[in-house]
């Protein structure tokens, strides 16, 4: 119990048979007016759940390993580049971003801002109410679903349009690289990310709702970029359908 929160509002007069001992400012520090706990002994149920999870994970990985071999290509040759050359799948989102703007913006500044935002989430939304509930409430759930759908539609369109009409190539020699590779992609990205927040702002959201929308935009965008880079990029790092890659290239060989 935080001592500074203890307020002595009444003197402990000897003539009184009651006194105020403490003021509880914030639930659920004290279990006042609560019914019986809805708890069970951890043993053996938790131990059993964990045992089942261990067995399940080991079995799944064993089956996968019996069926699919880890890829191994020919020995490394520093003079011959593979086509395409891809980073591990979890960095394909970054590599896909690189296709749409200057590397410093796309691979360093935006990802750093994203990690910084993710780290700061609990300090931006520090209201303890509603913890431990999926999406906090029904409104949170519908906000999340709407935002996810928005990103799932707009990001693939952006990736496709930007690859078909890349400002980098169209404006080469017309405008400085700083404009075509930093300013223009930066503005487009900012608009895509901030648009849902602007719409949301008219409904007087609380901090949790802002976090839900912003996190969903970034999280789903990261998934879209990763999937595009991993599955839809073929030889020459051009866009192809995964089942229609030229030269028999199979993106899953890169796992």
């Amino acid at each position, binding site marked *: 119990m935080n001592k500074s929160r203890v307020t002595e509002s009444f003197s402990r007069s000897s003539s009184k048979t009651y006194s105020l001992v403490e003021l509880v400012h914030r639930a659920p520090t004290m279990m006042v007016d609560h019914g019986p706990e809805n708890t069970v002994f951890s043993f053996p149920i938790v131990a059993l759940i964990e045992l089942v999870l261990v067995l399940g994970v080991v079995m799944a990985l064993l089956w996968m390993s019996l069926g699919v071999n880890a890829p191994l290509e020919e020995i490394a040759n*520093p*003079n*011959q*580049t*593979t*086509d*395409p*050359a891809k980073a591990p799948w979890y960095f394909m989102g970054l*590599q896909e971003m*690189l*296709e749409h703007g*200057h*590397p*410093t913006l796309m691979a360093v500044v935006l990802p750093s801002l994203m990690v910084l935002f993710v780290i700061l989430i609990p300090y931006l939304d520090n209201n303890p109410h509603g913890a431990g509930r999926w999406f906090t409430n029904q409104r949170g759930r519908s906000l999340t679903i709407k935002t996810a759908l928005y990103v799932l539609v707009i990001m693939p369109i952006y990736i496709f349009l930007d690859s078909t009409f890349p400002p*980098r*190539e169209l404006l*080469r020699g017309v405008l400085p*690289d700083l404009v075509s*590779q930093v300013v223009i992609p930066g503005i487009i990205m900012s608009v895509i990310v901030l648009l849902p927040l602007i719409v949301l702002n008219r409904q007087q959201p609380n901090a949790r709702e802002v976090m839900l929308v912003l996190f969903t935009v970034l999280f789903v965008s990261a998934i879209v970029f990763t999937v595009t880079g991993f599955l839809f990029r073929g*030889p*020459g*790092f*051009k866009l192809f359908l995964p089942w229609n890659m030229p030269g028999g290239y199979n993106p899953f060989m890169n796992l």
Partner: protein
Amino acid sequence: MRQSSRPKITRAQFLSLTWLGALVVLAGEAVFMLISFMKPKASGGIGGLVYAGKIEEFPPGSVNYILSGKFYIVHPAGGLMALWQRCTHLGCAVPWAEAENQFHCPCHGSLFNQDGVVIGGPAPRPLDRFSIVIKDDEVWVDTSKPIERSNFDPSQLTPV
């Protein structure tokens, strides 16, 4: 005790601060040692001077790949230039595409002309170059330090 005789800082505080300062210095030393220890020995690319060939092997307009140094000797009008094969985009090895008369990186489609200047693709700057030393009609290339540049300038050429 009189107010004026009280020291601004007590003996205990002074000793604590001294210890704290010493610890900070010690930590700084440890970090310095760690960084010095981890610093790679050869800061350059492939190493020291690499022999590329006789001057007459590089006629004007030619592009020659020197495997031992992983660079190209190009000869635009005005002199020789050594271009590192490492793509400035993501480090792939850039091959010279004879048919297209340009450097064409297969990884992400960056294109460079004979001077190493970007003419297409995502590469942010021209190919890095190495400095050339000409001794008795022999072309030597210092591969220890790649030189970054933002555009082509005739001063980058070594006249022959």
